[in-house]
């Protein structure tokens, strides 16, 4: 075991997967000599050379588009998009092609590839460097969407994403990169994609979150326990697509109450799909309307006003209290 932050944990996953499989390669802007603007690919260039750790020209569509071609050939590229705000420049390559080649060729080709991107706020960054756009990817059939919540699961999920035969969009919360360290086993470990984690058990209410919002949900649960004597169950989704509805429904069947927390804007966001799934799967158990705590539906507000939009502990606690009192 070593204590690593999320950046180092992700770096370890890349290093070990590249050592294990010569078909794995990394490409993106500044991922080589510089080791990536967040240092996730640090030292990989030195270890594996410029042919496997490619400092690509500055063009997202071609980063993902050439990765699609590499994947069709049988390689397993891992692309880094510098910030999720710039992934619209390659969205068509992800949606039109990476997600569809298996279907389009009826299984003759598929795209085993990962597109990593930092997302989310809380880092006092400029426009396009703070937004949460996971809903766009969650809606695309053919893709998987993984959002780890800490160093250890980030490492284990990146390993699974690289080994997964389908294209995986890998969202890394910037706010978590350096937030805390965790014990991470030195030998490779993998976590199944598509499986949520019960981060904390409880019987009164279910808080559902992913990525950086898991810590917010856990802290809110702590406040509810201390101040209200309520036991919240906290579910860390880890994968948004495919969504682990079984775990969600199982939890809400027990608690009867749910609050979904995410940084993406509320309307048509993941919370809507989660609420609908809970209505379908646990309707008779529901004691209160499902609440969504999410960003407001306005274009980016600037980090000076970010706190008023992105969920925080008091907002989650307040929503939980209303749900409990319903």
């Amino acid at each position, binding site marked *: 075991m070593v204590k690593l932050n999320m950046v180092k944990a992700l770096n370890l996953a890349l290093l070990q997967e590249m050592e294990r499989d010569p078909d794995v*390669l990394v490409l993106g802007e500044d991922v080589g000599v510089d080791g990536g603007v967040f240092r996730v690919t640090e030292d990989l260039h030195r270890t594996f050379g410029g*042919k*496997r750790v490619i400092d*690509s*020209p500055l*063009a997202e*569509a*071609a980063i*993902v*588009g*050439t*990765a*699609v*071609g*590499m*994947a*069709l*050939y*049988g*390689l397993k*590229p891992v692309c880094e998009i510098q910030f999720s705000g710039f992934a619209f420049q390659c969205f*068509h*390559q992800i949606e*039109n*092609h990476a997600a569809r080649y*298996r*279907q*389009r*060729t*009826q*299984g*003759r*080709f*598929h795209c085993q590839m990962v597109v990593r991107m930092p997302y989310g706020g809380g880092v006092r960054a400029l426009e396009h460097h703070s937004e949460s756009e996971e809903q766009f990817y969650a809606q695309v*059939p*053919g893709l*998987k969407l993984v959002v780890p919540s800490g160093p250890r699961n980030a490492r284990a999920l990146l390993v699974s994403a690289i080994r*997964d*035969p*389908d294209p995986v969009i890998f969202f890394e919360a910037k706010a978590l990169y350096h937030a805390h360290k965790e014990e991470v086993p030195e030998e490779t470990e993998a976590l199944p994609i*598509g499986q949520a984690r019960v981060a904390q058990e409880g019987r009164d209410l279910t808080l559902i979150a992913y990525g950086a919002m898991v810590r917010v949900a856990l802290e809110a649960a702590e406040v509810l326990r201390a101040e209200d004597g309520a036991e919240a169950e906290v579910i860390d989704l880890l994968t948004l697509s*495919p*969504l682990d*509805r*079984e775990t969600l429904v199982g939890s809400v069947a027990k608690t009867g109450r749910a609050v979904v927390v995410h940084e993406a804007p509320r309307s048509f966001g993941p919370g809507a799909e989660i609420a609908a799934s809970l209505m379908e799967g646990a309707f008779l158990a529901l004691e209160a309307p499902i609440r969504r705590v999410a960003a407001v539906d306005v274009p980016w507000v600037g980090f000076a006003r970010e706190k008023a939009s992105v969920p925080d502990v008091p907002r989650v606690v307040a929503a939980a209290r209303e749900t409990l009192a319903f």
Partner: protein
Amino acid sequence: MPRTPLDLRLSVDHLSILDSDGNLDTALEPDIAAGDLKRMYRTMVLGRRLDERMVRLQRQGRIGTFAPIKGQEASQIGAVATLRREDWMVPSFRETAAMLWRGWPIEQLLAFFAGRLEGGRPAPDQRDLPITIPVATQLPHAVGLAYAAQYRGDDAVVMAFFGDGATSEGDFHEAMNFAGVWHVPVVLVCQNNQWAISVPIKKQTHSRTLAQKALAYGFPGIQVDGNDVLAVYAASREAVLRAQAGEGPTLIECVTYRLGVHTTADDPTKYRSEAEVREWERKDPLTRFGAYLEKKTLLEPGLEEELDAEIARAVAVFESLPPADPLTMFEHAYGELPAHLRAQRQEVGERLARTAPDPPAAGEPLPPPPMRGQRKTSRWSN
């Protein structure tokens, strides 16, 4: 601190070997074996005949919208004829002749245009990508394939097709730039057929040629008479050999013309003159190549009839395909079917079972299937 012209040595050739009057530049004439010449001509004629047949099939509602190739046979066959089977071919959506050359069965192409995904599945050993519809987006794939070939140490070459309109797309420029920087074995074949639906090349670019765009990306570009199969072949062969020798990418601009409609949903009389079309009909690639082969006594008598029979057989195979099984739509969404799709498949299966007509009693003849285009009864409508 003087201001001095840079010595860039930028130049673009135009290549023509066999012109529309039948004049041949014997010094440039490529050395192509008689059997290959015959096969090239055969595939060009097959492409033309199939095109015409497909227009009729579309009008009859037996296949959906498609993009005819009429007039562009030389650009396609001259280029793909220089590939080996282990090389890759990356088409756009107007490459029927090239696809036939690469071994796509006619009935499979028909299935594709009849909206069946099976039509887009290359054979297990076939190194072809399927038709790509979003303009120019296949070009980064070609560059990625070429990078992968180089990475693995294979000597495969990748050839990609696209139109003049595609050269305005960002993906074209990004792919060109990556190809140049990575120095990969890719041959980019632009079929400049003068039109992108209704937009003429003049409104597409202010460049004098499309070929010259390669120079900005640091690799050679050449313009060829795209209706001259010998010129296209010669330029492609040179590009393929360069790629194989590790000398990087080439852009080939084939100056050609789309003699037919953009797609079967298009009416070109709205945007171009009959006179222009007639002008280009004079430069028909088939006439020119046919005359060249005739001089070499390589023309096969009865070829058209033979090819028409081949097409008729394929149409019959296509028409006898069993109906598409809707439930297979889930099979290739993911490597392994996730839980929510298992549930959706079951839901669809149950819905179809509920709405399907009762099977006929033993001995009773099957009711005729509804005619295409005919309104279906309400019990089918869901």
